[in-house]
């Protein structure tokens, strides 16, 4: 292990990349490609590298992603922290540009057509936002729990999210909620998570149950909290509980309004399908119903590679992109699907571990950011396919067909891997 001198004149030991993470990444990409091949396979076009087929194109994207990864590993981490705001600015500019240049795909206007290749700036914006937010939080004098700190952080997140929302790409905008996790890690009050959890629970309950029953449940919860949970009741705790109860009731009664007026009709339908209020297997419920059939028919060991009958027969729409997991479920069965869950969670846990061992706030925050972005994709995508989350069209990272997302995720990940390999060099 020879020593070499970098361009700042510092002696560095040979870089140690985290091969576990890289290995898991490769595993996901390869298994993903195998399933795209299976989803698009038919006897007529079984060639591996035919560029007219999707498996052929994806092969090209995998190659391109490898180049991105390789190049990224040669870029000094300091480059990213130094240029974070510039990249963020560029990303915002691109998003604005998209509003004017976009081609319409599936009802959303989030793609820029570059002729040879369609490009989704929102994928890139996630990376840029992660960099900018990490840079901001990592700045020495920023206090995340101060009012100014919070507002700035929220602005950094919301500006690109809003621009993406204007492109009618709700799924991608929702991904920006992922930044709550790194902020939480850096000291954001825990009440944010608790409030979010309570709000989601009340929203679902209010849609499914009678409003007064929900209020009764909330009241019971408050009483249990006050008289059984708390050992010492102060005036403050009474006031807090009463305020919580009032806000909850207002929330419950505004759910209907929000549901009817704020959400788009298709979003309402998707939520209804999820909650079992409608059972339209031929209309809005079709995707999820077919995806459940495909996965459910896989059984314990699956039907075998290239032997899926539902996915092969195009019953599942979007099966090589957002519904790629159906192919895994059908052809690899419970064993294969559960193994993929384990690999994915393992991968995310590894990223948490890596983030935790960073010495700079920037690197740690950045690590948590990309972990959270990957996690929210994983959670929404798999949850949607399994019918536990409403249908929101976002891809499964490294797995779904598509060049933009694969390259953007690869870039994000390898910037962090490079960063991680430098951790011993700093301070």
């Amino acid at each position, binding site marked *: 292990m020879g020593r070499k001198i970098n361009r700042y004149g510092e002696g560095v030991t040979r870089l140690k990349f985290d091969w576990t993470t890289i290995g898991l990444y490769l595993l996901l990409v390869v298994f993903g490609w195998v399933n795209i091949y299976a989803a698009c396979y038919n006897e007529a076009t079984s060639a591996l590298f035919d560029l007219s087929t999707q498996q052929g194109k994806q092969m090209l994207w995998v190659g391109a992603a490898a180049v991105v990864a390789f190049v990224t590993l040669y870029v000094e981490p300091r480059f990213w922290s130094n240029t974070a705001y510039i990249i963020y600015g560029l990303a915002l500019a691109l998003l604005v540009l998209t509003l004017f240049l976009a081609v319409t795909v599936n009802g959303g206007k989030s793609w820029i057509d570059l002729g040879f290749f369609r490009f989704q700036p929102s994928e890139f914006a996630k990376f840029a936002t992660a960099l900018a937010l990490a840079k901001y939080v990592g700045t020495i004098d920023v206090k995340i729990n101060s009012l100014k700190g919070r507002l700035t952080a929220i602005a950094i997140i919301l500006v690109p999210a809003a621009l993406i929302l204007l492109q009618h790409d709700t799924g991608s905008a929702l991904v920006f909620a992922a930044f709550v*996790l790194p902020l939480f890690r850096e000291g954001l009050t825990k009440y944010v998570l608790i409030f979010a959890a309570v709000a989601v629970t009340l929203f679902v309950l209010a849609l499914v149950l009678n409003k007064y029953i929900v209020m009764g449940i909330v009241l019971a919860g408050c009483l249990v909290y006050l008289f059984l949970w708390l050992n010492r009741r102060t005036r403050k705790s009474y006031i807090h509980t009463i305020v919580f109860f009032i806000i909850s009731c207002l929330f419950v009664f505004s759910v209907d309004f929000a549901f009817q007026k704020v959400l788009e009709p298709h979003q309402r339908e998707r939520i209804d399908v999820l909650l079992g209020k409608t059972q339209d297997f031929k209309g809005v419920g079709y995707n999820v119903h077919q995806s459940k059939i495909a996965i459910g*028919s896989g059984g*314990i060991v699956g039907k075998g590679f290239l032997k899926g*009958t539902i996915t092969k027969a195009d019953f599942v729409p979007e099966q090589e992109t957002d519904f790629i997991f159906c192919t895994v479920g059908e052809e690899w069965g419970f064993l294969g699907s559960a193994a993929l869950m384990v690999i994915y969670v393992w991968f995310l846990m590894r990223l*948490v571990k890596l983030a935790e061992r960073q010495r700079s706030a920037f690197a740690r925050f950045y690590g948590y950011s990309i972990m959270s972005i990957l996690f929210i994709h994983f959670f929404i995508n798999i949850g949607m396919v399994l019918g536990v989350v409403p249908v929101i069209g976002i891809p499964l990272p490294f797995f779904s067909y598509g060049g933009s997302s694969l390259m953007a995720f690869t870039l994000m990940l390898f910037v962090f891997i490079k960063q991680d390999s430098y951790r011993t060099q700093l301070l």
Partner: protein
Amino acid sequence: MIDRYSDRAQVIKAILIAVGAIFVIRLAVLQVFNNKYKSLAERQSLRNITIYPARGLVYDRNGELLVYNDVVYDLMVVPRSVKNIDTAYFCRSIGITREEFEAYMQKARNYSPYTASPFMKQITKEDYARWQNLLYKFDGFYVQNRTLRVYPKPIAAHVLGYVGEVDEAEMEQNPRYQMGDYVGKSGIEKTYEELLCGKKGRRVVRVDVHSREIGPYENGAHDTVPVAGEKLYSTIDAELQEYAERLMANKRGCVVALEPSTGEVLALVSAPSYNPNLLVGRTRGENYLTLLRDISKPLYNRALQGQYPPGSIFKVAQAMIALDLGVITPNSGFVCDKSLVGCHNHPSARSVQEAIKMSCNPYFYQVYRRVIQQGKYNNIYKDSQYGLTVWRNYMLKMGFGTALDIDIPNVKSGRIPDTAYYNKWYGAGKWAFSTIYSNSIGQGEVEVVPLQMANLAAIVANRGYYYIPHVVKFYGEDSTKIEKYYERHETGIDPQYFDIAAKGMYDVVHGAGGTGHRADVPGIAVCGKTGTAENYGNDHSVFISFAPMEDPKIALAVYVENAQGGGGTWAAPISGLIIEKYLKGEVQRKDVEKMYEEVNPCQKLPLTKRVKKPKKGRRR
């Protein structure tokens, strides 16, 4: 830097593990603890295609093809998969109206929205070829092959029968049949259904969301090959059958021609007949109704189901019984006493042979009296009961009064009355010979099916025995024989008496004063017996015959309903022509042929008064 929140990493890890665990549990619920999705998947992604086997072919006795199959196509539809089709364009393409489209669709939907059912049945090859290029545009439709019967010659409809869609009762009886299958409904199609139908094959294919086939399921592991039906080798002589049908074309009645030495049916005609090709294909239902409503009853098989008074041909059988009983001798003579029963003018018969030649009614009155009243009992009522029973047993042995087990369904038995029959009518001990004497000349209560008449001719030709008439000789690749048709049935009557009958029948055609001269064929020793069955409306004209006299090759019965004139006028010459055709291969007497082909014997009858079924002979 102070990291006050490092324990929050544990919270985040907990969230990750919780989500992973929820997903794994959800997967287990969907994939391991639930069979619903497996069956849903099979139902929508696999299609069972039935491959219909070719129905067995039918050949005539000379190897000529009588029935074969043609491929037609059923347009199938899976209602659920029909989406976004241009209905107007679709209707125009296949030539139906919008209303028909809706009706067919509704029918298919009622059957099942998810599985295929016939939208339109039996599309011709030509139509299919025209649509084939269009069909891909219409999701949810596909085409399934079927076979239809084709009859190269439009003959022998009553022998061959027809094939129709299986009905509820048949499906219940035999679980092999499914909705929409075809099954023999009459004729040998019905009798030999088990042999003809073959075995259905199956193909399991994967279909895509547009219900297009995308390939075999598991490389065809679940597929079976159809097995074609067995070939039937019929006894029918197609040329003779065609000729006989030509002769009977504008008449009502029937022809049954047998080969006496084997019981094989050479021709079996029931006129009016119909073209068997009418009861095939999409127009079948319509044509069937037309035929069913036709006042001349073309679907009715007179040769097997018509129970007629036999008329004078019955005298041959009467003579045989009396001779065998010994109540008369071959040289017994009876005066032609018209006070007993009416007769035409002729010298009195001095022997059985002469009596047959001249068809003397009083003679057979006497013969029958001796059979019925044998003098075994002093009480004539008791004596008649005894005589009738003896007589009836003889008749049964000659194939009368019992359904001959021919391989065409619904053959009737005719009637040879027994004592119980008369007891019911008149009361026990209240009838005697004088009550039932009309039977002597083939009138009265006796009824005979034309097949039995032909069989009588065959019995005389064979001098005393017969084989059950049949229309299929053997079947299959290894020519399996049908046992019951190779079993000789004896009448128990001494063959020498049949020689007398044969001589009498020879005289009918050739002798001076014979009643059947018109059956004469130059150079052939034709033996025959005329009959004129009295009836409401004009008499029926009957003739049974066989030829040549020694070593007979053909025995036949010809029955012409309501013909103007007796058996000698119509049935005899037609018999002669058929015999000539069969034995010489070609009829030289073209003038005779032309005459009997063209003339309609019952032209003068008002059409509306046509009887459905031959009525019983008038009782005197």
